[in-house]
């Protein structure tokens, strides 16, 4: 029982790090979104998304297989894309209010 509690404690610790890292990653995505916006580029960049997925599969050493990792990172990409879209929409409202 002691061992189980210890392992669960470690999972909680890793989750904490994952949440921090996911948010750091999201911050970077938002920054990229801002740059894309200024350059007039679309939020959805399929080629880049494919690159990201290929990269995580490449560096993967298991036990999660490539398919599992793809699905997990698809979720992360989905959420970042949504975040970028919301930021884009907020910018659009702002510039409208400024009468641009």
């Amino acid at each position, binding site marked *: 029982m002691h061992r189980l509690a210890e392992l669960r404690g470690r999972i909680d610790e890793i989750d904490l790090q994952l949440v921090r890292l996911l948010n750091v990653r999201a911050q970077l995505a938002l920054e990229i979104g801002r740059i894309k916006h200024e350059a007039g580029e679309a939020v*959805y960049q*399929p080629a880049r998304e494919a690159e990201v997925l290929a990269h995580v599969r490449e560096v993967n050493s298991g036990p999660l297989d490539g398919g599992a990792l793809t699905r997990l990172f698809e*979720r992360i990409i989905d959420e970042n*894309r949504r975040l970028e*879209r919301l930021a884009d929409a907020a910018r659009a409202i702002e510039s409208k209010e400024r009468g641009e």
Partner: protein
Amino acid sequence: MVVIMKERATEAQVQAVIAHLMDMGYDVHRSTGANQAVLGAVGDGTADTGLIEVQDGVDRVHRISVPYKLASRTFKPENTVITIDDVRIGGDEVIVMAGPCSAETEEQVEATAAAVKRAGAKILRGGAFKPRSSPYSFQGLGEVGLRMLRSAADRHGLKLITEVMEASQIDVISQYAHIYQVGARNMQNYSLLRELGKTRLPVMIKRGLSATVEEWLLSAEYVLAGGNMQVMLCERGIRTFESYMRNTFDISAIPVVQQLSHLPVIADPSHATGRRDKVAPMARAAVAAGADGLIIEVHCDPDRAKSDGAQSMFPAQFERLMAELRIIAPAIGRSMCVEPVARRGWSR
């Protein structure tokens, strides 16, 4: 909506669909399976599933949300109750509307109103503007008929429901009626529905001859979207391959619509069957199925009626039916009006 891509869809096709969904305002959740990609589109996008279905590489599209909003139970979980003075449609009591197909003469309207009141009806039905299948059939008495109907209704403490065929009749009808009826043939007359949305009298929308439940609810949506929240629906039979009866009475539509929508559902066994000997069984079935009300054609002298005589009940038949319904309604937890005191005294 959920978009399922074909097994052999290329990456470029999947990407094109994602881009399209995003253009429509959706957030996209992509899930790549062993054989095919599944895209979940969430958010307040403009859902034209047809447009997505025809994209290259798309296998099928499932819509999750319904296209009607105000009419749906999601929007309003509790039942809508329409109150006209002391009459509550959509509450516990099963409300019966009865009367002639058309107003013909003072005497006919008066005799029929008296008979339906005696049997326990709460609302008088009757047409003054008639949408007949043939332009050579009796077309109704117009405002003269409305006046006859309203004064008979008032004399007997009944409310009045009458059909409005076009927007130009809305004003004159509002001076006489308590409820506008939109006929089956006008169910998709969207300009009329929009105008009725601007009024504040209750509206009963009959189901179109070949209308799906969804189309019917979308018609209600037109009125609701205009701000008139007092809408009820009326099942009156649909066209099927069966030709023995005039229409096929879709009793299942009653519980289906009550599940999808908060609006009261009325059943019209007269038009659903077209024959007076079939009206009573279908009326009993409709109440047992949970209808919030019935609308039944009754004529003081059906054999001489100028319209719909074959489906109009004799007053005595109607009275017997009402007595039967008073037994059925409590069995499913509903109530029916008790017989008026005057009637009980008279029958002894």
